[in-house]
Structures are given as structure tokens and as C-alpha cells.
């Protein structure tokens, strides 16, 4: 299949290869690193980031950027917690927060498209707005005590001595859906076209405006869903939650081989990118004795090693003339 052959040449795969190398290094270096649960934990611990990063992938593929995701995650936890505190039906809460996420994304998408505002600035305003709304709701953290919610959160799906939570399942579904949408639907192809060259996409008669608005809406929904998963992980709402998560998400997407100017990249790469960030964190935890600033330095160094390895792998596989 030529499609698969093409796929193998992508940086996303390179990231995956490097990820495996790094994992191997971890197994050699640390006791207990080879436990399958360690790998599962990476996905358990980063399910929310993965979902947010998948949304970000859509945006970045069009050549845009969404800085509001972290704030939307926080707002979601805040709204969910405060509504659950008032004994609103959890299902309804779920619908409400997803709708709020969608609305914020939609709003930003409209501003970006209709008024030709740079995505950076529009989504920065969105970030301020969402974060600000959190504080208006409350500056304190609100615990989530709803039984159904917490049951879903702590339910463990066990198989063969290992376990995962519902968040992992949800994030896996999101990844699969996103990969499908990007590869097999018109929206997905329009997104790539838009990232390839917006003006051409316009002249080819593609629905540029609709696509743009759609990606920000998708990102908003993903952020809200990520927020829900975060409340599964830390059952509370807090305005300072997910500070700087936008950067983690962008980093995951870009490490996964998606080009920031748009038009090229895969959801699979994003999964690998989140894996890289998660693995770095896991290595740090296993190392276990790093002081605070050495933690940061080591994260930086590991990031550097990853990127350079990935670069080397892709360079060897690069095709001839790309103009």
C-alpha cells in the first residue's frame, strides 16, 4: 500500500522510533521500568493532555494555534465542580461543559475568520477570558464529591494483572475518531489543504471559513473533554489548574512531527509526542532524587535529546527535492 509507505517516511514515525529507544534506555537503567503498568500509567497520567493535544493538532494542521486550551480545561473543571456541588445531574453537567468548550472555540474561530485576526491574539484573549471566568466563579478550589462522577473516575478496567481507567478509554476513542476524521473525511482533507496554502484552498473553492471555525470548535470541545478527564484524575475544580498546559499540548503536537506552519502531521504523532512528555516525566520520577531545578534542567536535556534523535532519523529518510 503506497499510503502506508508514505506514512513510514513521516516524522511522526521517527518520534515513535525514538520513543521506543528512550523507553529501552529507561528499562536498562531503572529497576521496575519494564513493568507494563509503567507504560499504561503514562497513558493514565496523560489522558487529559492527550485529548487536549489532539484538539490542538487540528488547529496546528491549519497553521493556527490555540493558546486558550489550558484555560478552557481549568474553566471546565471549575464549572463542573461548581455545578456538581449544586447537585446538578452529572450527565447534564457533562453536556454543559462540552457546550461551553465548543462555544468558546466557536467564538474564537469566528473572530479569527470573520475579522481576520491572528489566531495567537484571538486565542490569547480567549485564554484570559476563560481563566478570568474561573476566578469570577471562585478563587478557591472546589472539591468534587458527586458519587457517579467519582466512581467513573476511580473505576479500573482490569485485564491480566494490569489496569487502566475510563479516561484512557475515552482518550483512545478520541484519538481514533480524530485520526479517522483527518484521514477519511472531507473536513480532514480540507484541514490539510488549509494548512498547505490558505489562498490556494480558497481559490480551489474549499470552505475555508467553515473549516477554520470548525478546528477551533473541535479544539474547544477537546479542551473541555480534557478538563473532564482532569476532574477524573484530580476530582476538583480550580482556577489555577492546567497552568501552561497549552505549551505542553503544543510541544506534544510539534514533537509528534506536525509542522507549526500547518499542512503536515498526524494524530499518531501527537500520541507519540504526549508519550515523549510522559516518558520524560516518568524517567524523572524513577530517578527520584532530582532537586527542583535539576528536574527542569533534565527535562530540557531529555527534550533536546529527543528532538535531535528525531531530527537525525527524519533526515536519513528525507526525500530528495522538496520545493
Amino acid at each position, binding site marked *: 500500500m503506497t499510503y502506508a509507505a508514505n506514512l513510514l517516511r513521516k516524522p511522526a514515525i521517527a518520534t515513535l522510533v525514538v520513543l521506543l529507544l528512550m523507553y529501552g534506555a529507561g528499562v536498562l537503567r531503572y529497576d521496575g521500568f519494564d513493568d507494563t503498568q509503567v507504560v499504561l500509567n503514562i497513558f493514565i497520567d496523560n489522558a487529559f493532555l492527550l485529548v487536549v493535544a489532539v484538539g490542538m493538532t487540528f488547529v496546528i494542521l491549519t497553521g493556527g494555534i490555540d493558546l486558550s486550551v489550558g484555560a478552557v480545561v481549568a474553566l471546565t473543571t471549575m464549572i463542573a465542580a461548581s455545578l456538581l456541588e449544586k447537585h446538578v445531574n452529572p450527565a447534564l453537567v457533562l453536556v454543559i461543559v462540552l457546550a461551553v468548550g465548543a462555544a468558546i472555540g466557536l467564538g474564537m474561530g469566528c473572530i479569527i475568520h470573520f475579522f481576520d485576526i491572528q489566531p495567537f491574539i484571538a486565542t490569547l484573549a480567549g485564554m484570559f477570558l476563560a481563566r478570568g471566568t474561573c476566578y469570577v466563579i471562585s478563587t478557591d478550589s472546589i472539591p468534587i464529591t458527586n458519587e457517579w462522577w467519582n466512581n467513573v473516575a476511580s473505576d479500573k478496567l482490569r485485564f491480566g494483572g494490569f489496569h487502566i481507567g475510563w479516561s484512557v478509554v475515552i482518550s483512545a476513542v478520541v484519538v481514533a475518531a480524530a485520526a479517522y476524521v483527518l484521514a477519511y473525511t472531507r473536513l480532514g482533507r480540507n484541514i490539510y489543504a488549509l494548512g*498547505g496554502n490558505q489562498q490556494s484552498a480558497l481559490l*480551489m473553492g474549499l470552505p475555508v471559513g467553515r473549516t477554520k471555525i470548525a478546528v477551533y470548535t473541535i479544539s474547544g470541545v477537546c479542551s473541555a473533554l480534557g478538563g473532564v478527564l482532569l476532574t477524573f484524575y484530580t476530582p476538583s475544580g480550580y482556577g489555577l489548574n492546567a497552568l501552561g498546559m497549552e505549551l505542553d499540548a503544543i510541544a506534544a503536537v510539534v514533537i509528534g512531527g506536525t509542522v507549526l506552519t500547518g499542512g503536515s502531521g498526524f494524530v499518531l504523532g501527537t500520541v507519540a509526542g504526549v508519550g515523549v512528555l510522559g516518558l520524560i516525566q516518568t524517567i524523572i520520577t524513577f530517578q527520584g532524587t532530582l532537586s527542583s531545578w535539576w528536574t527542569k534542567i533534565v527535562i530540557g536535556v531529555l527534550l533536546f535529546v529527543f528532538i535531535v534523535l528525531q531530527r537525525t532519523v527524519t533526515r536519513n529518510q528525507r526525500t530528495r527535492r522538496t520545493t
Partner: protein
Amino acid sequence: MLTMTGITKQFPGVMALQDVDFRLLPGEVHALMGENGAGKSTLIKVLTGVYSNDAGEIVLDGTPVRFSGPLQATQAGISTVYQEVNLVPNLSVAENVFIGREPRTFGHIRWGEMRRRAADLLHRLELDLDVSAPLSQYSLAVQQMVAIARAIDVEAKVLVLDEPTSSLDAGEVAQLFRVMRQLKADGIAILFVSHFLDQVYEICDRMTILRNGRLVGEHRVADLPQLELVSLMIGKELALLERLEDQPKRTLDQAEPVVEAADLGRSGSIAPFSLTIHRGEVVGLAGLLGSGRTEAARLFFGADKPDSGTLSIDGKPVAVHGPRTAMQHDIAYCSENRRTEGLVEELTVRENIVLALQAARGWSRPLSRRRQDELVGKYVKALDIRPADPDLPVRNLSGGNQQKVLLARWLITEPRLLILDEPTRGIDVGAKAEIQRLVTELSDGGMAVLFISAELEEVLRLSHKIAVLRDRRMVAELPNTDDVDFDRLMAAIAEGGGTA
């Protein structure tokens, strides 16, 4: 079928269209003629809603329409190939053909069918491509064909082609015309823009002529002799063109070599070849689409790194590490793809023209404003770049004028070897004659020129020597003597063997 009346469109500082009327009848091929910057592309963009008109009315099939963009225009049955190749390079060829109307079941794209249909469609245009490879891997000409394929596949009432043939060779053009005739027979109206008069006379039924944004006239092609058309287009008689037509073959006295390629090659792009270019010599490269002419030219300039052979300049082998080394040896390369490899669209005409010279001088030795004005002014005038305002962003210029800007960039560096890859692409008759005259003049003055053009006549007219490429391999080198003519050259290209 389609009427446009009183169309007026003003850009800041330019009246691009003024009270233009236009009629398109069903089943006709209608040419839109005019010099560079006359307003042809603008009229098309007004029609398809890319630009909104300041005044005037568009009626399609009896109902007034006003499109908000190409999407609506396409839906209303107007399929368009815009002047610059407007495709997305990161997607595959198949997607570029079908995006927006992919074969689907319940929203699920059927990739297999899409690839198959794309391959079939391209086959109709005699193009055999790997349709799942990204478009960016193909040369501009191929991309142009893909754009055409995309447009003709639509169930359209009106097909608009803005300079589709500018980078195609004779065979491809013939192929395109066959398809156009077939569409015409199906009752589709075609709006065709080209600067090649022969093509217009071959395929078109009627024509509308624009000059400086105004309507000059509407004629049946059969009623209007070529020369009369040209004088209508430029507003005066054109003597120069005729003079060039019957220029005798050019000969060159033995001169010292400037650049010598010995077994120069790059795997995957062009097989090793040898070619010597002498002082004052014009070497033409001939070949079909994708035969490797551009590839060869890029190796001379160092745009791509050769992986075999040597390049000698003035008899001394040099390692060309990139464009800069080539430029240090006074080699200039005017790329065929002005949009992605040539111009910086955001910058002004002035900045685009001085860019290469400035880069060669280094950032710390800026050209004085006076010197800039002098150089830019000279070439704006010499090449008749319009509008003649050097401080306009280059993206606001018409396609042909952009091409002239790119040419000017390299002319002011006064190179010893000038590589011109399709320099006359999208340029009107007058300007084309001007450029051909310029090349002759420069080579008489001692400049060596490597000349690539899809127009064989042009290559024949200008070159002292012609190298023929085929399947990315240099197959022949012919001195352009009196016995070399169009047919002989075609034969060389087709059969791959030099008879010389």
C-alpha cells in the same frame, strides 16, 4: 450564457477594470486578450467572486449572480484554473484533483476510488503520475496539468482557464486542446486566456480584448488578423515582433568557456551530463515536461547539490556549495516558479529587484537609495513593468509583470552566466519580444545564457546551441545550424537520439 456588464474594479491606486462588458456563449471558446496588467485575471476573479466589483452586473443563465467566493462560483457551475497554480503542495496529486468533491460513502472518503479516478483523469491528459505522491514533488508544469485536470472534471457550465498553457510544452498543449474541443462539443463555454497568439487562433471562436482595464473590442477570431489583434492589444503597431520573427540563425565565433559541467549529476533527479557554455553563448535546453531541464539548471546554480561530476568555472573546478558560491562566480538563476522560488510577495517591487544584488553585497553594505532608484528605474523602464511604481507590494502586480520583476532582479547583478528557466512564462507578446531582444543583446555583449523554454520556437530562435533532455538524461547536443528546425528538434526530443 454569461454576461458581465459595466464591470468596474478599483484597487488602491489602480483602476484595474473600467466599465468592461463581456459575453460568453454556450459551446464557444472565448479568448480574453490583453497585455500584462490589462485586467484579464482581475476580470476572472471578479467573475468568480474572489474580488467584489465596485460596479457592474453579472448574469449567469439569465439570473443575476454575485458570488461571495470561488466556492459559490464552483457550485453555480463555473470551474476555474487561476493564473498561478493554486493547489496545495502538501497533499497528494489525487487529493489535489478531487479535494472538495471526493468520492464518499456516508462521509467516508473512498481513497482507492479517488486514486483510480485521478489516475484515469490524468491519463486523459496523457500524464502518468504516482497520484499518491505529494504534489510538491512534481514540476510546475505537471502541477499546471493537475490544476487543469481538477477543473475539467467538474460538471461545469463554464470553464475558465487563465493562462493554462504558459508552462506547457507543445504536446501537452495539444492534449489540452483535444480535451477542450471535447468539452466544447458538450456545450460547455470556455473562457481562455493565453499570450500565445497561435494557440488562440487555433482553439478560440471569439475574443474580447482589454487594454489598461478598458474594453477595446469583441471580435470573431476569424475576422481579426494577428497583427491587427496585437495592435489592438498594445494600442500601436508592433514592428519589433516581425523583425524578430525573421531573424537569421545565430552563430558564435569560438569563445572561451565560462562554465563546464563534466559528468555532473544528482541521483534521483538527473543522470550525469556534460555541457560547456561559452562566453556570449546562448545554450537552449529542450525537452518535454519533467525531462530534467530545471534539474540541470539547478545543478549549475548550486540550488541542489550534485552528487557526481565536477563543475568548472573559467577552467577551474569549483565546489558549489549553494547559490551563494554560484553567485560569487557571477552565475544567476531565474527560477521557473516565481511564486514559491522567486518572489517574496510581501516585499515591494523595488526590494524584490535589488534582493539578489543586496544579498551578494552583504547586509552591511546597503545599496544607496539613489543607486536603487537608478537600477530599479532602469529596468522598470526597460522591461516595461507596470504599474511603474517601485514601492508597490509585488503581490499586487499582474502575473506577467511579476515575472519581469524576477528577471530584473537577476539582470541587475550583471552575471556572466544567466540561467533563465521559462523566463517568458505568462508574458505578453510585446514584452516577450522585448525579453528575446534583451537576451540577444546580452549575449552579444558577452554574457553566457542558459535558456529554458517550453516554446521550442523561442529556443530555436535564440540559441547558439541546443541540448536535448529526455527522461532526465541529456540525450543530444545540437549546434543550432540552419538545418536544425522545429521538426528536427522534435524528433530529437521524441526519439532521444541526436541526429547531429
